[in-house]
């Protein structure tokens, strides 16, 4: 069967578009999916609502080896209503979990600051589990100029 030039070009353009789109989709989807799985394990299957959690991270991190990150959750931190834990996840790191902060009413405030390693530009996620079982999250994108996973 002889293809006209027009048909041959259309075929190859379609093939290239398909190849490019699948290349772009797979790595990002895999990272976010792994992070999401870990997140859902932490929440016991509950989908987090937005609100209450405030994640602060730089828009651009010059050094991926040490990126300052703060999280603060709106809560009265009384014996009857407090934040139990907050997990930080990095969607694009080889392993998504970074740290889990565990609070008690004696914390006074559900707030913590630390420094993390980010392998590349990605989303950082903070998920909070409250004493009443409710779950909240916040997400921030951090651009990383020099990746911080060593080697």
């Amino acid at each position, binding site marked *: 069967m002889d293809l006209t030039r027009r048909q041959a070009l259309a075929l190859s353009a379609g093939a290239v578009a398909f190849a490019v789109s699948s290349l772009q989709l797979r790595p990002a989807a895999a990272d976010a999916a792994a992070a999401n799985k870990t997140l859902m394990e932490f929440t016991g299957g509950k989908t987090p609502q937005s609100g209450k959690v405030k994640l602060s991270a730089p828009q651009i991190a010059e050094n991926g080896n040490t990126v300052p990150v703060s999280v603060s959750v709106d809560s009265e931190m009384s014996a009857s209503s407090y934040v139990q834990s907050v997990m930080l996840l990095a969607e694009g790191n080889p392993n998504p979990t*970074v740290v*889990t*902060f565990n609070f008690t009413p004696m914390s006074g405030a559900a707030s913590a600051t630390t420094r993390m390693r980010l392998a590349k530009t990605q989303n950082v996620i903070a998920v909070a589990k409250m004493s009443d079982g409710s779950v909240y999250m916040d997400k921030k994108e951090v651009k990383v100029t020099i990746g911080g996973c060593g080697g």
Partner: protein
Amino acid sequence: MATAKPRVKVPATAAAGEVITIKTLINHKMETGLRKDKKGKPIPRSIINKFTCEFNGKPVFSSDIDPAISANPYFEFNAKVTESGTFKFTWVDDDGSVYTHEQSITVK
């Protein structure tokens, strides 16, 4: 066995019911387990995996730590103090070592 030195900043005094800020740092390489040496052999993971803060024996705050926390792990957090007493901080190393530090506070 590494010797890791902790540094902690706790205010010397506080008012009863005040929520104070505590800053902690410990020297530690936090080897992720993802790096390879010059011969291409993976360098095994070796990190501080847990940090806890207690006040007069009661838990205040703790962190379950993964390799993505930077070297010389830094944690800043809060504590509500209602009486004078002593904070006890502990850091647990993958190799089983436990580093501790205590600091007192006078609450008026």
